[in-house]
């Protein structure tokens, strides 16, 4: 993940080309081989197989899997077909969630990391506290928050009522509140991970730069924007990319907390794909949807790389 996200070094034009380089490359490939084999078996091969499946009416439970060409894809782009309405609604839901969660999951950890990076008493305790929710599985956080946010019986609405605020907000049952819930829970749950990565990035910025900035008369804010942020650029790009992908792959939270409801208003793309493929056994259509989702994410990732690429 890190390797693919970080910008690769420019080819060594200053270095001498020749046998030495080639031998070194060969050694590198040798060391990469074990991973490459696993990568091929567990990522590339299933991905190619998935493409093959997407060209069939592939129900694993029936004896034959007829080839249907691009029909599964065409149906996705034909309004009124069995899958297109549900699929694009789920894509839109995934979009809402991603747009709502990614900025928070980048900015809040950045601020927390910057604060934790100061030499404060009990810094590691706070770091542990912020990271703690991430240790829990999605099933655990899903069940916990479903109870806390229950519209009639939950703690949150009870507290709101005690404070004289509306106490009947349908946090888990109706939109838009369900989106606040899903985004809030996800931010609470995963911000610790991004915080730790960014914190590691902060530790990697040379203190000399801050000293130099101080000598030049820069204040705290100026140092943050002129030293910290540029120093974090590769780390931030990694964090942003990974967070976008994670948010676009959101499944467990909506599956457990809102059940995709009301109606299908919070059913995400992954949730719909899983239902179509694994519950309804329409593997062909589900694979086609996966590839459409993949295409979207690939384009977004490329744009993201372009935007954040270091300017020479």
């Amino acid at each position, binding site marked *: 993940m890190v390797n693919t996200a970080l910008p690769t070094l420019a080819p060594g034009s200053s270095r001498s080309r020749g046998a030495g380089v080639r031998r070194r490359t060969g050694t590198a490939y040798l060391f990469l081989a074990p991973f490459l084999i696993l990568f091929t078996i567990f990522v590339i091969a299933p991905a190619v197989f998935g493409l093959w499946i997407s060209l069939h009416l592939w129900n694993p*439970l029936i004896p034959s899997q007829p080839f249907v060409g691009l029909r599964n894809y065409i149906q996705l782009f034909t309004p009124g077909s069995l899958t297109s309405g549900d699929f694009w609604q789920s894509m839109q839901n995934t979009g809402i969630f991603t747009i709502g969660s990614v900025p928070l999951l980048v900015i809040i950890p950045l601020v927390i990391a910057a604060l934790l990076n100061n030499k404060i008493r009990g810094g590691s305790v706070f770091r542990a506290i912020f990271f703690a929710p991430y240790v829990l599985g999605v099933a655990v956080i899903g069940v916990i928050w479903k109870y806390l946010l229950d519209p009639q019986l939950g703690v949150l609405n009870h507290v709101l009522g005690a404070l004289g605020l509306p106490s009947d907000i349908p946090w888990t049952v109706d939109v838009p509140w369900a989106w606040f819930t899903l985004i809030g829970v996800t931010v609470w749950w995963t911000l610790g991970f991004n915080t730790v990565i960014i914190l590691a990035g902060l530790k990697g910025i040379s203190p000399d730069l801050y000293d130099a900035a101080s000598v030049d008369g820069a204040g705290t804010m100026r140092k943050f924007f002129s030293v910290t942020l540029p120093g974090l650029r590769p780390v931030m790009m990694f964090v942003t990319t990974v967070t976008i992908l994670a948010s676009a792959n959101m499944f467990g939270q909506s599956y457990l907390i809102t059940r995709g409801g009301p109606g299908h208003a919070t059913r995400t793309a992954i949730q719909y794909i899983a239902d179509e493929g694994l519950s309804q056994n329409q593997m062909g259509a589900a694979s086609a949807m996966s590839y459409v989702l993949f295409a979207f994410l690939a384009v977004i990732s490329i744009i993201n790389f372009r935007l954040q690429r270091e300017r020479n």
Partner: protein
Amino acid sequence: MRRISIRRGLLAGAALGVGILLAACSGGTGGNAGTVSGGKYTGPAVTISFWNGWTGGAAPVLVPKLIAQFNKEHKNIVVKDVPIEWGNIAAKMPLAIKAGKGPDVAVLHGDDIATYAAQGLLLKSDAIVKSLGYADADFPTGLLKAGNYQGSQYAIPWSVTPLGLYINKDVLKKAGLDENAVPTDQASYVKALDALKAKGVQGEWVDGFVFTGTFEFESLVWQFGGQLYNSDVSKATFNSDAGVKALTWMSDLVKKGYSPAKVAQDGNINALIGGKTAFNWNGVWQTTNDAFSKVSWTAAPVPQIGTQKAVWSSSTHWVFPANKGQDPNKTKASATFVQWMNDHSLDWASTGELPAQNSVRNDASLLTKYPNLKTFLGELDYAHYETVSPGIANANATITTAVNEAVLGKKSPKQALDDAVAQANQLLDQNKAQYGG
């Protein structure tokens, strides 16, 4: 990143696993292997494997005990108990049967039988049923038929789980109602709801989820004289007048203030246990809910809101998988096992399900041991079971969507049902195209 990479790994692994399995069984058996008759097993010693989804509740203690007893009493049969979570059974069993590695006997939910049968995964068991001496009259009305697909019997009933009306008696008492007066029809039910409302209690919290809003809706459709699907399950019919009446009744509970507007799943049963509401339509399985020990409660038959008595019930059934190269002796031994289990199913009631065999339910000691079940036994005279049609789960899911949208006020009952039926009909066409029938 850890989260992502693990998920990726799982997905990739799953995809690969499925791929290998598919490749392995692409040449599997398509049609049915022959039929096998049951009866008392007298053949050579066999070991049979028995798959079931009984991984929780009282079953993991009860079932091994029963099986040990069976194995002791039958010198030539050894039953191997293989409990697997229901979800995993659905994922593994079809492929295992095609590869000849499935169980010799298994328990399935009623709505899965046709899906398996249509794929040729189950043995036709008409002969077994006959040799075991089973007839319609040995089970609740219509239950044996719920294991029949296209004229052939594929299953033998094991248990039923009807819906009932759970009542918090303290809440009734506090509202000044007779705690022992159980509402039985629309008039008495509305009267009780009105009395509760006057005291500031919302009497029935209606939810829009499978558990249990969908079950309530389906009960009401039948009560108003409707059907979910037409007789050959080629068209969905739950948007009929009866369906609209049923869903209007439910959404009116909210509109008329008998229910809060946005109830989460299980919010209603939790509210009943917590003393915030008086009535909840829920399954017989709730009788084993430990939280009830602190509540003064009772269960009654669901009130008759519509024009006739009807109640939703699910069921589980024994099936005999048509493994590639299935040993007929093992199937015969399985039949002996099935009959023995049904005859010894009285304590199955401890799992919150009703034994299907009439003679067991009519045994007086059942109610002595499990008095809470009394209500539910009487309901079986007019219970409706799951629709028998391959792949029906996807069409059933549209019902829940409609109930959810209407109860939450997103669509009118009629609109929600019409939309769901349009979707369901497309899914039924797809099922027909894929599974035949």
